[in-house]
């Protein structure tokens, strides 16, 4: 019960921290990291939601787990793409 | 048993100080190493606590990757060094 709210709060705070990093930057790499932190917060929210049945002694919500897994792959792909663009931008700058 | 996990986590918490403080890059990479091995230990303990044998697989994966990571990172960082050396010589 208490843990549930603890993780829920942490998830939202992670989103907030990521948002702060995204706003502040200043480097683009840090902004990309910040997006990942936001993503981690959202995924944590989803996994915590999937944990609700466990508190009643049932197995966790596997649909949410699957969604998060899909989301993780999407996030990693997008990060990789962004980092590739950033890398090109940086090598070109000099 | 979860006390064991708690203490392990606490020892990780101590390690964070070193990442923040540095001073050399080596110290930071070391902390990743510490997180890897302590993380493996915590996963082993959690697998016992929750009776989830699947967490052993996670520990195995983390162990292997923690083994692979330094080889990749060091190689990458050497490229960085080489690159900045090239640039200063230009």
């Amino acid at each position: 019960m208490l843990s549930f709210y603890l993780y829920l709060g942490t998830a939202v705070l992670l989103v907030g921290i990521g948002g702060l990093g995204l706003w502040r930057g200043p480097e683009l790499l840090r902004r990309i990291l910040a997006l990942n932190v936001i993503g981690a917060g959202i995924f944590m929210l989803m996994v915590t939601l999937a944990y609700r049945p466990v508190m009643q002694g049932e197995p966790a919500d596997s649909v949410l787990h699957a969604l998060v897994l899909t989301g993780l792959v999407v996030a990693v792909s997008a990060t990789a793409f962004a980092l590739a663009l950033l890398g090109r931008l940086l090598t070109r700058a000099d | 048993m979860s006390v064991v996990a708690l203490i392990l986590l606490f020892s990780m918490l101590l390690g964070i100080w070193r990442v923040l403080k540095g001073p050399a890059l080596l110290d930071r990479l070391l902390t990743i190493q510490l997180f890897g091995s302590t993380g493996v230990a915590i996963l082993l303990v959690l697998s016992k606590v929750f009776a989830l044998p699947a967490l052993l697989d996670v520990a195995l994966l983390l162990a292997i990757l923690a083994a692979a990571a330094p080889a990749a990172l060091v190689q990458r960082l050497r490229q960085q060094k080489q690159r900045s050396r090239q640039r200063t010589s230009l």
Partner: protein
Amino acid sequence: MALLLFDLVLCALLLLLAGAAMLSRSLTQAVTLFIAFGVMMALAWARLKAPDLALAEAAIGAGLTGALCFTALVRYAKQPAYPQPALWRPLTFIGLVTALLLASLSQIPLQPSSAIPALVQQHLPQSGVSHPVTAVLLNFRAWDTLLELLVLLLALLGARQAPGDLPRYRGWSLSISWSRLLSPLLLLVSGYLLWRGAAAPGGAFQAGALLASGLVILRLNQQLSWLSWRHFWVRMLVLGGLLAFVLAGAVSLLLQDLGAVWLSWPQSIAGAVILIVESFATLAIAVTLTLLVVGEPKPEVADA
């Protein structure tokens, strides 16, 4: 009690790492902290009884993201001196938004009203696999997974438009032989994860990501020079996952009667179809991620 304390310390660690990564002065520090954050996330997933995600996060957070971020970091050869941006204005705004979000969270019902978990359990026997997450990914919501593979492919296609050139140097013999020693083990374990996926946590993505890490260290240590988009077979591997998926969809559409819909595997062969699709997807994910992380091979430069 100890578990609650464990949760408390874990959450504190997560927030501390994320916050420090966002606010730290140097970028190297931020990246290191972020990798540590990835490891902690894997622990959090393990704590929340999501072993599938813990596997995936361990493979991504500890392996690939680290390699990716360090690759980008390498390009920031000398760190440009940015003025330290203001903190208070964003902090107030974000704090406000976060508080609003937190306030709305209190209305989340503790007892989920969803019928989905029960439905998953009910249809699991017809799905061809016995692990619910795999059943959702490869059967119930297979269309999502297909599109997700497409997103991964697109990341590669996009990244290929922006090739960055990094000189390569011969590794030390220790690191080369270590990577040679490690790679069969990686291959073995990823095969194991793939095979486990049908009945237990594991599956295509975890196996693929692990395999990719193996390929990446081999590539960084000057091996596998054949691994390039120019080779037809490498392209075949990259596209294989999607092709297998689409073909499986088409074939099972033809095998069934006219009323059948897209991506419904006939029950008798569902297990086999899923295994085939997953195997190709694993290879595709592995090769795609590797190409994303290390790019195209370039002629080797002698060690300076």
